[in-house]
């Protein structure tokens, strides 16, 4: 596949980087990334991936665009209120970059469909807002041996970590099981600064791009935390012993996917 003149110009700031070059840009164009959740995190992730020329981007979300989403979900616009988020996201991505093929999944991810959805992708982005979905994505990616980026945002805080099979702890190594419903506030209950999705979602997109290019160090074995009020990032080293994990350990006790009870106030597509 040779680049068109338009592609050479479009991706010139990538191609000029020695870590990318024409070869790296081809890798990006051949890559398939799935973004689960087209919300505060998923919006910037999907936009940066589309702009970067990730050739195939899957986007999964069951919800429709709501006016209260627009404070942070920058992939959707005022005219999109009421539209399925995946549709609105697809239109924005395709308008940004015609090189990108967008595949939409207008449904909740569940134990029934997740393995089938993730199987064709090289890297998965967890942009969901609730713990049942986060644990489901983790367990499915561990079982299917897929790398993924976890992230969470609330108020003025954010966190992320990257899981690559065999290269460090999974989400469940760190957080054993979902907290009971409403025990830990979600961003709907607690609020979140819109730019937080931009900060943390952009970092998720960066991890996906680095993984595809095979450059640099990923956030495997670390949890990156961001406190916007203190303007402080911390890269916290995670314990390296994953042997006892219920899903990625030596003798896993979780061998089938679990649909935990969804908190009433939120959904994958909130």
């Amino acid at each position, binding site marked *: 596949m040779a680049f068109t003149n338009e592609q050479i110009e479009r991706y010139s700031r990538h191609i000029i980087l020695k870590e990318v070059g024409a070869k790296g840009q081809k890798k990006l164009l051949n890559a398939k990334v799935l973004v689960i*959740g087209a*919300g*505060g*995190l*998923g919006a910037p992730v999907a936009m940066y991936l589309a702009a970067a020329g990730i050739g195939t981007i899957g986007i999964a979300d069951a919800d429709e665009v709501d006016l209260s*989403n627009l404070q942070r*979900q920058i992939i959707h616009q005022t005219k999109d209120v009421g539209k399925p988020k995946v549709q609105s996201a697809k239109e924005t991505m395709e308008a940004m970059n015609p090189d990108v093929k967008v595949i939409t999944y207008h449904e909740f991810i569940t134990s029934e469909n997740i393995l089938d959805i993730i199987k064709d992708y090289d890297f998965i982005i*967890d*942009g*969901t*807002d*609730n*713990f049942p979905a*986060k644990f489901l994505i983790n367990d499915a990616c561990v079982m299917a041996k897929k790398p993924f980026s976890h*992230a*969470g*945002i*609330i108020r003025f*805080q*954010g*966190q992320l970590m990257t899981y690559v099979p065999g290269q460090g702890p999974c989400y469940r*190594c*760190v*957080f*054993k099981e979902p*907290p009971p419903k409403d*025990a*830990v*506030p*979600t*961003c*709907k209950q*607690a609020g*979140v600064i819109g730019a937080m*999705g931009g900060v943390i979602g952009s970092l998720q997109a960066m991890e996906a791009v680095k993984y595809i290019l095979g450059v640099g160090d990923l956030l495997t074995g670390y*949890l990156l935390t961001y406190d916007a009020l203190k303007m402080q990032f*911390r890269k*916290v*080293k*995670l*314990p*390296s*012993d994953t042997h006892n994990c219920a899903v990625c350990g030596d003798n896993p006790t979780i061998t089938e996917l679990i649909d935990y009870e969804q908190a009433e106030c*939120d959904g*994958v*597509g*909130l």
Partner: protein
Amino acid sequence: MNITVAGVKKEVADGLTVAQLVIDEKVETPEYVTVTINDDFVDHGQFEGTVLKDGDTVEFLYFMGGGQ
């Protein structure tokens, strides 16, 4: 003795347990925090019985569920 908590060095009393440190540090939703000391996870059942040692590095890892 001196320990490092969430990246901050501090002097604490000898014999301090993880359970007491969680209180002293005003950890939000302490039932659901993940605690690590040096390179190990500390189970919740071990908070009372785990006595910190000079030079320990303690981290509190919080659930962050938002994203949408």
